[in-house]
């Protein structure tokens, strides 16, 4: 099954290419920490606090992403390129090794370089950061992301190997690998979004395996939707590794069955060639077919020119692939019948969307058959909070809740069927049926329903426990302009104070609230602190407001901010006076009667304003801010011509009429 000699040969053969990629990744591994170090060193040399940098996941070395998008596929194409040339293919098929041995040994060589490269570079980065103050490396997050990246590379290698086992030219290898990696999910995603667009109550997780994250696919698409990349690498590891192992098994079977004579041909037979051609064209057709479907439901205005253009492009792509891979004009005619399959596929796709939509809309859930519900408030790839994670696990048994949600669902369905628009707050609800099945639905609640929902939830013992339990020992904390020690002390005080509050009071603020029933806060909001960590293999990020609701936390927050930002403020004024600022900005927050502060711009280019602010800050230094009196914060940031950057906040009391006059809009 495995030949160590062939493995060594594979390593040796791919050494130059691997060395090039690892050198690029290593540059990132060294230069990114070094640039952070030099930035911090410069800040320290200047005498101000550089602030804490938390290194999570890919922050350690974003360059490593090339291992998945370039290194792994290119190295696979290179090392197995013998499959594309007749003489090379004959050579490797004549050697005294079984095909699976050749496959396993060369694949192991690829994975050694790619995954070894990732971990080597990560180790170098972590070692460098180990000696750097002011940087907190979330080691667990970095390691989990690198594990996800390694698994993503494995899937890319496996998909490329399947493609190379069924095609015999570089172009067809690449196209087929892309189809294998992206087409199934693209079809599922488009299908799902077509159904969801038609039937808004359907939850994406109810349709297929989209709830599982395929790392390479989701990474490529997160580039468009701006999702949390670290999150998908962590959450997708298990599914991706299972998929990669299945793909590798398929690849080894196909490799074993592959005929040496396929080398140089785009496909081993006409059927495979037709399948590839049709699928390429189908990818282009899908959006056009979707547009027609949406038009049928009158949810969008039809762009017939766009639809026609897409179908024409699909036909062009269909024939272009045939021409490029076979280089025979006569094959155009032979490929014509395959267009019928393409048409059929589009019809099947459209019919599937319509049938699924019909089934969902006509499926009635009876209150008597619902045993419990689970509620989820977060929908995107964004990291969920600690509380949301725990809320999702709560199985809520309350008939009032069931009735409320099912009534809202019926109203939503009626609105869809009547094609009327509605507004409301969305909840993802999983109904646990008495017979053991689960049904997921998105439900939009009106404001009054949301209010009732909140009241029912507040009465629930389990929910109260979830809402009032903040993470005890998060992996890391983050708050702007504060040191690690300050964050730790502030968070510890917050935990103490929250434990003494009741759920309705604590849960009344937008950032803390789960689910998102919101109201304006009666307390001043000074900032927020984030807790990052892991809960049952998934990451969480909880953000808590620092407000007057937790007065000791607020006082401590203000104290640390002033203690740790005073020098920065001094430096800001010095740089301004010496005209060394490339760009800068400042504002004053005025704390009034609760909620977010009122922001005023200030003209710090005016020497009189600067002098006044310097005086106010100097007076406040070392003196606690009295939150019962009029109080403000000075927020500033500046970058010098030489690239040094400083930012900070400073809280102060003032009744100075000049200062108050200075604030615009009062």
């Amino acid at each position: 099954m495995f030949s160590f000699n062939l493995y060594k040969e594979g390593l040796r053969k791919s050494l130059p290419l691997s060395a090039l990629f690892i050198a690029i990744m290593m540059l990132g591994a060294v230069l990114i920490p070094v640039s952070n170090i030099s930035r911090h060193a410069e800040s320290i040399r200047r005498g101000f606090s550089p602030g804490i940098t938390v290194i999570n996941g890919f922050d350690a070395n974003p360059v490593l992403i090339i291992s998945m998008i370039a290194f792994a596929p290119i190295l696979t194409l290179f090392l197995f390129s013998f499959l594309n040339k007749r003489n090379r293919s004959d050579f490797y098929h004549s050697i005294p090794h079984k095909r699976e041995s050749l496959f396993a040994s060369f694949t192991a060589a690829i994975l050694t370089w790619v995954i070894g490269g990732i971990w080597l570079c990560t180790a170098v980065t972590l070692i460098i950061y180990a000696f750097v103050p002011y940087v907190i490396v979330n080691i667990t997050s970095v390691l989990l992301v690198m594990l996800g990246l390694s698994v993503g590379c494995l899937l890319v290698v496996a998909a490329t190997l399947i493609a190379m086992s069924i095609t015999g030219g570089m172009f067809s290898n690449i196209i087929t690998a892309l189809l294998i990696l992206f087409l199934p999910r693209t079809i599922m995603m488009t299908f799902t979004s077509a159904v969801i667009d038609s039937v808004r109550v359907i939850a994406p997780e109810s349709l297929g395996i989209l709830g599982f994250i395929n790392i390479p696919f989701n990474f490529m698409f997160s580039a468009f939707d701006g999702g949390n990349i670290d999150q998908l690498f962590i959450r997708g590891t298990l599914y991706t590794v299972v998929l990669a192992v299945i793909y590798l098994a398929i690849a080894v079977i196909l490799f074993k069955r592959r005929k040496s004579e396929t080398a140089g041909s785009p496909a081993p037979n006409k059927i495979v060639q037709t399948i590839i051609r049709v699928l390429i064209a189908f990818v282009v057709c899908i959006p056009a077919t979707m547009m027609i479907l949406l038009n049928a439901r009158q949810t969008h205005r039809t762009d017939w020119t766009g639809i026609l253009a897409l179908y024409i492009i699909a036909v062009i792509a269909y024939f272009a692939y045939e021409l490029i891979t076979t280089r025979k004009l006569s094959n155009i005619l032979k490929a014509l019948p395959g267009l019928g399959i393409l048409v059929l596929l589009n019809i099947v796709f459209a019919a599937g969307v319509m049938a699924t939509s019909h089934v969902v809309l006509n499926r009635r859930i009876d209150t008597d058959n619902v045993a419990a519900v689970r509620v989820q408030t977060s929908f995107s790839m964004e990291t969920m909070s600690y509380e949301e994670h725990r809320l999702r696990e709560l199985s809520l048994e309350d008939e009032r809740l069931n009735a409320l949600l099912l009534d809202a669902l019926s109203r939503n369905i009626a609105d869809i069927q009547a094609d009327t628009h509605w507004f409301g707050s969305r909840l993802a609800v999983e109904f646990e049926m008495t017979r053991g099945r689960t049904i997921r639905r998105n439900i939009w609640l009106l404001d009054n329903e949301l209010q009732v929902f909140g009241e029912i939830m507040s009465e629930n013992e389990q929910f109260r426990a979830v809402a009032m339990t903040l993470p005890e020992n998060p992996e890391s904390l983050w708050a702007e302009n504060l040191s690690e020690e300050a964050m730790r002390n502030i968070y510890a005080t917050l935990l103490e104070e929250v434990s003494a509050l009741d759920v309705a009071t604590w849960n009344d603020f937008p950032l803390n609230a789960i689910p998102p029933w919101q109201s304006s806060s009666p307390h001043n909001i000074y900032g927020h602190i984030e807790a990052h960590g892991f809960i049952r293999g998934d990451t969480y990020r909880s953000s808590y407001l620092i407000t007057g609701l937790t007065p000791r936390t607020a006082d401590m927050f203000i104290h640390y901010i002033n203690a740790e930002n005073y020098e920065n403020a001094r430096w800001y004024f010095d740089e301004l006076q010496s005209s060394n600022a490339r760009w800068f900005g400042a504002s004053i927050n005025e704390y009034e009667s609760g909620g977010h502060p009122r922001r005023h711009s200030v003209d710090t280019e005016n020497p009189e304003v600067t002098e006044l602010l310097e005086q106010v800050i100097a007076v406040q230094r070392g003196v606690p801010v009295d939150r019962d009196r009029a109080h403000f914060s000075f927020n500033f940031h500046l970058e010098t011509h030489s690239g040094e950057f400083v930012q900070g906040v400073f809280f102060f009391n003032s009744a100075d009429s000049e200062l108050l006059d200075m604030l615009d809009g009062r």
Partner: protein
Amino acid sequence: MIKAENLTKKFNGFRAVSSVSCEIPKGCIYGLIGSNGAGKSTFLRLITGVYKADEGGITLDGEPVYENPVIKRKLAYVPDELYFLANSSMKRMASLYSSIYADFDNARFMELTELFKLNPKVNINTFSKGMRRQAATILALCTNPEYIFFDETFDGLDPVVRNLVKNLITQQVLDRGTTAIITSHSLRELEDTCDQLALLYQGGIVFESDVQNLKTSLFKIQVAFLDAYDQERFEGLDILNFSKKGSVSNFIVRGDRERTKEFLETKSPVLLDILPLSLEEVFIYEMQALGYAFENILEEDKDVQL
């Protein structure tokens, strides 16, 4: 021993090798001739386990070759289209072969590169076509194979090197009992090297024989009589081709030379000459006897036609 039974290989319905059956004994140099597309290379790829037969089978020492590393370890293959690693030297290729073939003989490799005056450290890309073929031959011989297969091996070699390669192959067969199969589209290339020859045409072996036997089994007779006569006078002889001009007849006889001479002398000819045939002439007449036109079989290579 190599044994092919009803061996068939098809490409998109085209039968490149069609129901070939043959037995090649150990220690034999077996020549396979045929025009381009006759199926020689496909036959070799089947023997070396590169291709899997669609029908029938092929065994070496009674074992199938395809996906059989134990058998493949015993064979070496020099294909018509050679393969070397990109920008590699012979030394690098020797290292590749060492990692694949446990018995690769590095001492012999150095010895042979010296004999062929090939610098093992130089990039093979700088080699001429002939030098590349020599390099591939050296690498194959150094694996110490029990079976060695050469596809159009003498292509591109100058006469001196060609003889050197032939001698090496012969030496290998004599010293180590290796079985060799050599393909060529030129009969002349093979007649002085091979023990057995087979002619491949449209994927099938149309003729196969021992070379020594071939050379002695057919001979040309030139005979004349004073009285009138026709072919019936020679009834009892196995005549392949008969022509008569005036009183002189020319014909090809298959059989024992001495007994034929004795038979003809009993007829009291005024002229009797028994002439030997070249291997090519033997092939022509044997093929004609089988109903093939030899010129057509090797039509793609005009310079080897007779």
